[in-house]
């Protein structure tokens, strides 16, 4: 059996598959179907300092090869997570990544400080949520914003810090480099691409927020390209996500430069996708005569 372990900024994952934030809640639902230790890690639903009700419905629209969402960071707040979700999650035998979003750099810093006192394994900083008016994405679309919020969090964050980048930028490499320079231990990309659908009869956008974040197979090639570009610019690990649906996609994303992977939207079609992707990945490593999954990271042979 080839070794599936990966090291992500000092944290050892049993395999490179992480459930993507916002698609997996705090693990309880899919935990009905298989042990959560099946996964290398779980990136929890995005947390804010205080509880957020989220956006009004409809929040979901299907698109060719994917979907739009505008959930709007509905979450119980960081303290509720620590009190009610983390103790249970901690017992599931997987790496726990807390995902945080704030309105100001100070809010991000405060959450990172609070979570540093807990036994979460890692913090993922979401500076790329397209669905909330304030916070999130405005920090993620300029180098200055990435630098400001990352360095603010870095000062108080005692956990490995991963910065989740937005694809709604002209140069993803610049953003990854800015995160690294400001002290990030890893970057994850891509968050969703901003999109829109309109009902032609009512002339209303299908999503109540008008726009939403596009995910699913439709964004996969964009994600592969951006992971490839980012991986060339930084020395810290790049976690690849965006439309991974099959084990072949997982291999492709690793080859592009990803050290670990996140999967999300595919779960809605097939809740057992992580199990199938890991089986396929293991088989592929055997067939290729590779002893470790890490040998695939960045092994693309560009023309």
């Amino acid at each position, binding site marked *: 059996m080839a070794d599936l372990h990966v090291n992500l900024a000092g944290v050892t994952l049993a395999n490179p598959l992480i459930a993507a934030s916002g698609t997996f809640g705090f693990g309880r639902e899919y935990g009905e179907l298989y042990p959560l230790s099946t996964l290398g890690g779980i990136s929890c639903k995005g947390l804010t300092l205080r509880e957020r009700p*989220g956006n009004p419905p*409809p929040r979901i629209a299907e698109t060719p090869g994917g979907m739009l*969402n505008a*959930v709007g960071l509905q979450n119980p707040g960081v303290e509720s997570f620590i009190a009610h979700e983390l103790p249970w999650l901690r017992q599931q035998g997987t790496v726990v990544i807390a995902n945080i979003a704030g309105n100001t750099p100070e809010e991000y810093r405060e959450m990172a400080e609070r979570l540093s006192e807990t036994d979460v394994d890692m913090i993922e900083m979401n500076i790329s949520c397209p669905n909330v008016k304030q916070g999130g994405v405005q920090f993620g679309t300029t180098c200055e914003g990435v630098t400001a919020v990352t360095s603010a969090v870095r000062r108080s964050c005692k956990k490995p810090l991963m910065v989740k980048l937005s694809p709604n930028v002209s140069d993803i490499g610049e953003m990854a480099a800015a995160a690294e320079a400001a002290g990030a231990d890893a970057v994850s990309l891509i968050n969703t691409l901003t999109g829109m659908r309109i009902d032609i009869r009512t002339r209303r956008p299908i999503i109540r927020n008008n726009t939403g974040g596009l995910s699913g197979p439709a964004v996969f090639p964009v994600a592969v390209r951006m992971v490839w570009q980012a991986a060339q610019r930084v020395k810290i690990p790049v976690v690849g996500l965006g439309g991974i649906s099959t084990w072949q996609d997982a291999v492709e994303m690793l080859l592009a430069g990803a050290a670990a992977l996140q999967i999300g939207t595919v779960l*809605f079609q097939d809740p057992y996708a992580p199990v199938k992707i890991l089986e396929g990945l293991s088989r592929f490593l055997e067939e290729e005569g590779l002893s470790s999954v890490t040998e695939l990271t960045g092994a693309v042979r560009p023309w």
Partner: protein
Amino acid sequence: MKAFDVRQCRILRREELVPGVFSVWVEAGELAEKAAPGQFAQIAVPGKTLRRPISICEIDKARCALRFVFQIRGEGTEILARYEEGRSWDILAPLGHGFELGDCSRKVCFVGGGIGVPPLLEAAKPFGANASAVLGFRTKAAAILLSDFERQGNRVILATDDGSAGFHGLVTGCMPEDCEAVFACGPTPMLRAVAAWAAERGVPCQISLEQRMACGVGACLGCACKLKAEDGGWRFGHVCKDGPVFRADCVLFE
């Protein structure tokens, strides 16, 4: 035991009840054993990112079978409707919180509108003659499942918008006054009216809601619905996990 699971379910029987509305019985194994009235299933559509949420119409625990009655609403449901007997649907079920039936010796009223009628059939079964099924449709030609309710002993009251059969008007115009509980599913304006009807009479009412949905299990928080909060304010609950059936007095209609 898993509360829900994915299973390849062979189609045992398929028929088109009225144009565009299909009845499908599937062999569902342990999913049927776990299912309760008012719950739903998420059915995968090849080539589509999202499963289609379809309510469970009948549960045959002896044969481990589930019945779905659904309308072609778009490409996804059209693909599902084309599946012939012998082929299999990929089903994630049973999902959500169904009807709480309580004491079946009470006189109760099931109120359905259009394609909201199917999830009431299984729920009305144990009430037999104690249940009135007030079923509203656009027109006579769109009416479905009337004989199914009659066969299980329920008293059927038909209403049509155009008066082509039964009572001419809204379901709230022909709901029996002597009922002790109401269970409803249908379009939002109907649910609002039924909830108001029940509230005026102090009769407990449960309603089944619909919303655009992604995961179906409570993980993605996509299918939000506005609920009254304990502190007098409101909060967003989720149709897939908190519902689809809610106490009507907990739902805030927009």
